[in-house]
């Protein structure tokens, strides 16, 4: 088990290091002096001396390989360099936006789980075929809706037509509700799909037939025997949706004008603020890899049947 743990963590660290290298190649090495693109724009009217000074400030005057190691050491010690747009440390800008985004993402994830579980369990439990057909169609509709359009549509209906939710000057909860729905809808779709499928799959297992044959009620079978077994594959998908949660918050925060990591990403791309974007990409990869590592490690704890198998394969 310990060897499995060490191997799995080592693999995660390797992926993170490779993600860092990829982002370095893409954002710093390939564009040449990526950081300087902005300042060498003649519209800014900077003199060659000033540009040379800026190169020194951002460390763009050193050979690439040195820059690589400096950036790597910096990232490891929490120093992400300086924002080109504001000149302030990147870490400060990220720290500013993180709480708002974490709040939004957590709430949206919880709502997505509630939505997915409701869709899957109602469609599995209902005796009405039409309701099941409708509910099974919902996830494929949800993945086909552009997130930004959904956000605008919600503002249109709930803020302007019905006047239920203020767009500006509401309480925190009021301001959070529409963005959370917007972000939760696309996340809930894959969760619901996998949950529906694994519910169906578990129902075909012999132990369900045994429970039914012994006279268990439909409710008892669903909750005691099927649900617990069907939730595990959904956990894997839940880990994988973290990436979509981060990407979705870029769009949601832009549509609703919320200040957070997503908005910062959008501003960084518009302003060609490469250090900020690089830090966000690495942060996203870090969150993704860490969450999926935790999911992997949680599996044997949640499902004792997997304990032996994991140990053998590691």
């Amino acid at each position, binding site marked *: 088990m310990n060897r*499995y743990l060490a191997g*799995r963590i080592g693999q995660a660290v390797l*992926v993170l290091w*490779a*993600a860092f290298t*990829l*982002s370095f190649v*893409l*954002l710093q090495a*390939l564009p040449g002096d990526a950081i300087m693109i902005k300042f060498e724009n003649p519209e800014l009217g900077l003199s060659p001396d000033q540009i040379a000074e800026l190169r020194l400030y951002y460390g763009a005057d050193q050979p690439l390989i040195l820059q690589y190691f400096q950036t790597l050491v910096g990232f490891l010690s929490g120093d992400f360099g300086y924002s080109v747009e504001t000149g302030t440390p990147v870490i400060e800008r990220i720290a500013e936006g993180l709480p708002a985004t974490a709040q939004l993402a957590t709430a949206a994830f919880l709502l997505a789980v509630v939505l997915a579980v409701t869709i899957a369990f109602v*469609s*599995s439990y*209902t*005796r009405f*075929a039409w309701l*099941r*057909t409708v509910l099974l*169609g919902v*996830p*494929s*509709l949800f*993945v*086909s*809706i*552009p997130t930004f*359009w959904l956000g*605008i*549509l919600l503002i*249109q209906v709930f803020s302007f037509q019905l006047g239920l939710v203020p767009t500006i000057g509401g309480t925190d909860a009021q301001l959070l509700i529409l963005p959370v729905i917007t972000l939760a809808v696309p996340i809930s779709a*894959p969760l619901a*799909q*996998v949950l*529906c*499928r694994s519910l*169906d*799959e578990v129902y075909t297992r012999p132990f369900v*037939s045994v429970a*039914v044959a012994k006279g268990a009620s439909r409710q008892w079978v669903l909750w005691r025997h099927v649900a617990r077994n069907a939730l595990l*594959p959904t956990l*894997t*998908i839940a880990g994988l949706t973290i990436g979509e949660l*981060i*990407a979705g918050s*870029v769009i949601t925060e832009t549509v609703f004008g919320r200040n957070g990591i997503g908005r910062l*990403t959008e501003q*960084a*791309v518009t302003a060609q603020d490469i250090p900020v*974007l690089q830090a*966000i*990409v690495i942060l*996203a*990869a870090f969150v*993704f*890899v860490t969450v*999926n590592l935790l999911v*992997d490690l949680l599996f*044997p704890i949640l*499902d004792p049947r997997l304990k032996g*198998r*994991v140990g053998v394969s590691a």
Partner: protein
Amino acid sequence: MNPPVATPADLAATSRRPVDPDVPSAGEPDAPGSARTSRRWFRRRPITVSLVLAWLVVLVALLFALVPGLFTDYDPVRGIAAEKLQAPSAAHPFGTDQIGRDLFARVVYGAVHSLSGAFVAVLVGLVVGTAIGVLAGSLGGVVDGVLMRIVDVLLSIPGLLLALAVIILLGFGTINAAIAVGIGSIAAFARLSRSEVVSVRRSDYVEAAFGSGGRFFSVLWRHVLPNSVSPVLSLAALQLGVAILAISTLGFLGYGAPPPTPEWGLLIAEGRNYVATSWWLTTFPGLIVVAVVLSANRISQSIGRSS
């Protein structure tokens, strides 16, 4: 690899695939087998209707892109100032925008930008991803290991962020946005084609082809590729829908085609300023995107099932 966890690409590929409504209802485990099969037979009909509808939507969208003049007489770029911000009517089925342009004409003429972008994106992902997957799957060993770790890395960065990183590198614009989206889909194609190649390679007829003196590339081309192609095509159709969504997202953020290009995402972004008064400006282009993406997913599902 660890057994309890399926590979991310497999899951990503299947998770986005619409739920199969054809699976026998397992909600009633007490239903006898014969009743279930007869109900399945009944269910076939509406499903076929939805597939026909899906092809129809895609066909109309393609016609929008190829012969836009067939559908509307209005100019998509120049407007009539006197007719600005009109609600939908017989003359303007989708209404008009802030400078009097017919919204339906803009949606029709916008199809070429959104669809060609999506095609380029899928092509990039398909060609590069399949090349990586086929190489990794057929060569095996160290090459396989290295290529698949690179794919793991691509998967660990959210698609949109990867696209934004590529865009910051290449600059804004339709083609750049399309390439950026395509790079994001390389990983899924590579994973799928590798697993297909690995399973086909082990089959008897491929062994036989090698045994009867076939050379590596000729066997790859004549036996392995044709037999791995159907699932890859299914993924391509699925990725087309994903790409349309991603490209409209980039267009909405302002990184795609510049105004006054009637790209679908940009149309929604422009209509956003009039959301309090002119609901049609955002609603209709969005509905068109939803319809096309839904159809692409439905077609992908039918290809996947027939294989």
